């Protein structure tokens, strides 16, 4: 039986019927990783022996020992958690992130930690201290980022599903570039406790899966109020899977002209057009809408996110954990020198850039001009969506203006890299949910992604639209050949 090409729900059904064991499933994935991850570099911390041992001690739960890959910025108790950064070298948190606790209570098996851009700073998985992850569709290309390892591990069939995090598109963009499904839930839907913070007001944890049903199931497990997270919302989690409804007749879908005016790759544009036709045939109604402040989103994001990041990363100083410089310290002020050298050695160039940018934006004399200003523009961007959702139920856009770009292509031009987030960033600023699903392949056989944006806490509509689409197409079934 080919195990690794199945979806999570298919595997659960087999487990339920007793036709397969969780040991067999884990072994199959581990074998595949062993033979093929050298060219992908998705996994950064993997202990096959421990994984197989763990199966015996897992609690009974609906996930029946099914493996899952975890992005390396999520704390797993006593396991290496490094955010792909030298500065967290050797760090083993003494606690589990809430989502990990929930997964383990449901009987899931943490397979291993997957690669990411350092501290989630990036859109290509090239800033990792473990080297880049390669796109399974074309190993010369980037998988996208920052959840590049999560997306690639699913696309390469190293795991049935994975968790990633999304601050400006970090789940959706790699999902799009790797031809998998990726969801950024509404801000506050999933607890952030145990997610090593990048930008506190933007971060969310979310699923990367083969299809929408798997994403709905995984969201069921990880969503919900957490009293350890003051920003998690105390409302009931619907059963997204049970409520999946492919009937989208009469659903009003908005097409924001500012997104379609952007100079996307023509194949991407064409692909989205085909999606629109299919959804129309299923009864959806399309409306052109305007999100007038779209052009300011990238600038707004790249002030707010680095500012919050500079604050969240202040704690990495070599005092309690991680790297502490080995170099000789200045005799006059050894402590300050320890900070300077540890952080100088421990942070990669993009991390340094963002921390310095953020510190600058928050510094005395610049706070009003940058951070405060950005917060005000953010209000306007949020309002654009609130206004749009008075007239439509959800919004469709491409996820990325292009397919996967070559590794090395954009890394030396940070601004160009930032601009590749143009379609995904606004959802984080407004806190709304956003889903990316595969909807085509370029001539070079690189995946194209469709993004669906919805009202706060209305993940169900996103799932329904995607489900309807997936019931009538098979882009999500296409696999990368590695």
């Amino acid at each position, binding site marked *: 039986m080919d195990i690794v090409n199945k979806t999570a729900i298919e595997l659960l059904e087999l487990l339920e019927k007793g036709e397969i064991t969780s040991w067999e499933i884990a072994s199959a994935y581990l074998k595949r990783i062993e033979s093929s991850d050298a060219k992908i570099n998705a996994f950064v911390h993997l202990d096959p022996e421990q994984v197989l041992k763990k199966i015996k001690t897992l609690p009974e739960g609906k996930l029946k020992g099914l493996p899952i890959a975890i992005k390396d910025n999520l704390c797993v108790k006593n396991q290496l958690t490094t955010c792909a950064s030298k500065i967290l070298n050797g760090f083993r948190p003494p606690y589990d992130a809430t989502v990990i606790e929930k997964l383990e209570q449901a009987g899931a098996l943490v397979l291993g930690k997957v690669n990411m851009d350092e501290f989630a700073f990036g859109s290509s998985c090239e800033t990792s201290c473990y080297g880049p992850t390669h796109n399974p569709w074309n190993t010369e290309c980037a998988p996208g980022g920052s959840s590049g390892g999560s997306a690639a591990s699913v696309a390469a069939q190293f795991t049935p599903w994975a968790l990633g995090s999304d601050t400006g598109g970090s789940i959706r963009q790699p999902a799009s570039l790797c031809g998998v499904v990726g969801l950024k839930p509404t801000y506050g839907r999933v607890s952030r406790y145990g997610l090593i913070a990048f930008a506190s007001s933007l971060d969310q944890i979310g699923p990367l899966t083969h299809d929408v049903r798997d994403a709905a199931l995984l969201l069921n497990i990880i969503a919900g109020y957490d009293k350890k997270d003051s920003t998690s919302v105390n409302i009931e989690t619907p059963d997204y899977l049970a409520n999946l409804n492919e009937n989208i007749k009469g659903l009003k879908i908005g097409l924001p002209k500012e997104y379609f005016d952007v100079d996307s790759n023509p194949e991407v544009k064409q692909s989205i057009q085909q999606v629109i036709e299919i959804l129309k045939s299923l009864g959806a109604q399309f409306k052109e809408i305007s999100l007038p402040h779209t052009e300011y989103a990238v600038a707004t994001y790249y002030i707010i996110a680095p500012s919050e990041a500079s604050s969240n990363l202040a704690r990495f100083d070599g005092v309690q954990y991680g790297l502490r410089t080995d170099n000789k310290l200045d005799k006059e002020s050894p402590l300050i020198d320890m900070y300077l050298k540890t952080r100088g050695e421990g942070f990669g160039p993009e991390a340094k850039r963002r921390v310095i940018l953020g510190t600058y934006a928050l510094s005395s004399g610049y706070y009003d001009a940058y951070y405060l200003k*950005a917060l005000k*523009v953010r209000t306007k961007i949020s309002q654009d969506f609130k206004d749009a959702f008075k007239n439509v139920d959800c919004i469709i856009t491409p996820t990325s203006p292009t397919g996967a770009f070559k590794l090395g292509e954009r890394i030396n031009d*940070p601004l160009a890299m930032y601009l590749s987030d143009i379609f995904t960033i606004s959802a984080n600023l407004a806190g709304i949910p956003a889903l990316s699903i595969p909807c085509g392949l370029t001539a070079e056989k690189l995946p194209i992604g469709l993004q669906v944006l919805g009202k706060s806490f209305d993940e169900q509509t996103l799932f329904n639209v995607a489900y309807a689409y997936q019931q009538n197409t098979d882009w999500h079934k296409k696999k990368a050949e590695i």
Partner: protein
Amino acid sequence: MALDKIQVKYVAKLSRIELAEDNLDNFTSQLDKILNYMEKLNQLDTSEASASIHVLELKNVFRKDENKTSLPNEEALQNAPKKETGQFEVPKII
């Protein structure tokens, strides 16, 4: 020019990050380019807008004044680069 080398050095110090001298020019020009792009925001009139500090309308989130088990000393110190008598050790502060 939004940002020059001297400012970058100052902000790096404020961020407690030692920057390599030979990379400073490149770094400065990258940052400068990014900040210039941010000037875009000044095209927008935000005098009437309120600042979105939070994206949710949440308020008044509390916990009860109750004790929870603390970490045992060994676990609190399990990642310490340097420790001594149950405490974290750092270079001497004069």
